């Protein structure tokens, strides 16, 4: 009707230059199906042959941790980045998963391959229990509840001596066995983490690009509008929380037989913040963000080992710098309310099309 008044903006309004141009070209290339499949195959093959390089077990250990944290950060990102809920107690669900799989195999002799999904399901149930009373809470209030829940879980684990061994933790968690192969060293365990991580990202990508993912994103962008369109916000927020908790449980369930020893001080709030920092640094609301974040934070942890506790200061500075300079994270979902959510240091909003100036005055 009014095309005569308003022309659609041209997509190639501004030619980017330099590094940005390169990145744009590469992403454009990656968007072509043929290239995407090729790159995925090359990438997976590369990841699959890494353990054959006979790296020192220290390096394999770092790689295993990175892979595990991609699941943890990725699942937290599904909550914080895609539905806009704010969970900072992800370590709680991680702990539930770790203890569930450890206890199942130690006390009941359940095979790892059965204990792992059970660990995920238990974490998911706990996620539901945490989510139900908090569905009406937003932002900082929800954050406080998740923080509390995470501490409660840790304290229960610490004090339930007869079940969890209290401060002594659980030791001697048996390594998983598949077709006679025992996954006891990090060279072998690497494959468990790799496969789980691939499954996680495959499933999450599909869920996020489906009706469910669209509902989550609509809640993040504008909950009132989403509800007016028939999106059952409470239900989808709870589902979202359960989905994130499930995968944190899976990561935990895979972690305990890998490390063979777990204790409650591995699942403190610091751990929750650690996972959160990966999501924030990498970029909320993008699939690749948590991967980048997990790699950067884990390498930093290794580089900063000499200064031990003081590395937390470096993380804090890094997060402040990120919030200031690039609130949407390195990979960056700049096309979202997430990009606006900086801590009030600076409002950056670039007009992306001439028409944008006309809209400024209202809303």
């Amino acid at each position: 009707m009014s095309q005569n008044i308003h022309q659609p903006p041209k997509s190639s309004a501004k030619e980017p230059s330099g590094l940005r141009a390169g990145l744009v070209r590469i992403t454009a290339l990656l968007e072509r199906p043929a290239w995407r499949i090729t790159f995925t195959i090359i990438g997976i093959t590369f990841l699959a042959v890494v353990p054959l390089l006979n790296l020192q077990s220290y390096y394999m250990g770092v790689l295993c941790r990175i892979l595990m944290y991609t699941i943890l950060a990725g699942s937290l990102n599904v909550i914080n980045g895609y539905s806009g809920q704010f969970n900072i107690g992800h370590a709680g669900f991680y702990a539930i998963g770790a203890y569930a799989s450890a206890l199942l195999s130690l006390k009941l002799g359940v095979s790892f391959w059965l204990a792992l999904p059970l660990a995920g399901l238990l974490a998911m149930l706990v996620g539901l229990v945490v989510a139900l009373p908090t569905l009406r809470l937003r932002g900082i209030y929800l954050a406080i509840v998740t923080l509390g829940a995470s501490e409660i879980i840790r304290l229960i684990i610490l004090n339930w001596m007869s079940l969890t061994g209290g401060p002594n933790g659980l030791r001697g968690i048996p390594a998983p066995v598949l077709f006679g192969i025992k996954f006891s060293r990090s060279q072998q365990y690497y494959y468990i983490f790799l496969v789980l991580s691939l499954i996680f990202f495959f499933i999450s990508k599909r869920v996020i690009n489906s009706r469910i993912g669209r509902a989550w994103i609509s809640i993040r962008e504008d909950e009132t509008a989403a509800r007016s369109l028939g999106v059952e916000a409470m239900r989808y927020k709870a589902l979202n929380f359960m989905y994130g908790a499930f995968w944190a449980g899976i990561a935990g369930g895979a972690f305990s037989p890998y490390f063979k020893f777990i204790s409650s001080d591995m699942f403190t709030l610091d751990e929750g913040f650690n996972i959160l920092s990966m999501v924030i640094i990498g970029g909320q609301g993008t699939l690749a963000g948590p991967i980048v974040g997990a790699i950067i934070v884990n390498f930093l942890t290794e580089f900063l080992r000499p200064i031990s506790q003081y590395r937390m200061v470096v993380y804090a500075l890094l997060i402040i710098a990120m919030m200031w300079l690039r609130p949407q994270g390195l990979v960056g979902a700049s096309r979202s309310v997430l990009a606006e959510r900086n801590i009030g240091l600076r409002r950056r909003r670039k007009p992306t099309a001439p028409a944008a100036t006309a809209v400024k005055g209202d809303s």
Partner: protein
Amino acid sequence: MAYILEAKGICKYFGGLKAVEKVDMRIEEGHIFGIIGPNGAGKTTFFNICAGVYRPTAGRILFQEKDITGLPPEAIARLGIARTFQNIQLFRYMTVLENIKIGFHIRTRSGFISAIFHDRRYRDEEAFIDAEAARVLEKVGLAAFRDTLASNLPYGLQRKVEIARALALKPKLLLLDEPVAGMNPLETRELSDFILRLNREGYTIVVIEHDMKFVMSTCDHILVLNFGQKICEGDPATVRRDHAVNEAYFGKGLVMGGLS
């Protein structure tokens, strides 16, 4: 005559403020129903009660003879009432197409399993959404802006995206909260024509509006609120002649050649 939406004795108090006081309303199927009144008359509050955002202090809302009082907005949307907002509430960082796709939420059903395995239902539903979204875009004349970010559109077009998104629900009743606010006369005319066309296609429409010319030329039936109370109801001609309405809009005194 079948009434599609009925309000019976609706009251809404915010503390001591009587935002809406004993308002009755009956909307006939196929009508364009206008709700007008000065600023602060309680129009939007009343509207939000119909859409489930607020629960009324007293009174009942019936939709197709079914009591929907106190149902949450998402349940009301599912029954077939779609709405737009006074301050445009688009998903600003999504493209126009993505905005409209959310509107198909209640018309599709696929869950986790379908999404993960891309089974037949998922593929059928996504194809259905793509085709229907294209149709809706064509209908409101936004096909050219399919991939534009909603926040980058000019005001008038953003309003249309909101209407398109509501149409995606395939509603039986369309609630429009000040659809022409901030539009120039040309855009207003266009939107008026568009609303009349939707009405001819069978949509029953409720419009809150300030723009008298728009209301008088578009609506079949008008309800006038002032200070939360109904002061007049009837067809445009009746409302135009009504003394209380003129008083509410122009104040007391020697209005219209000493009618008082």
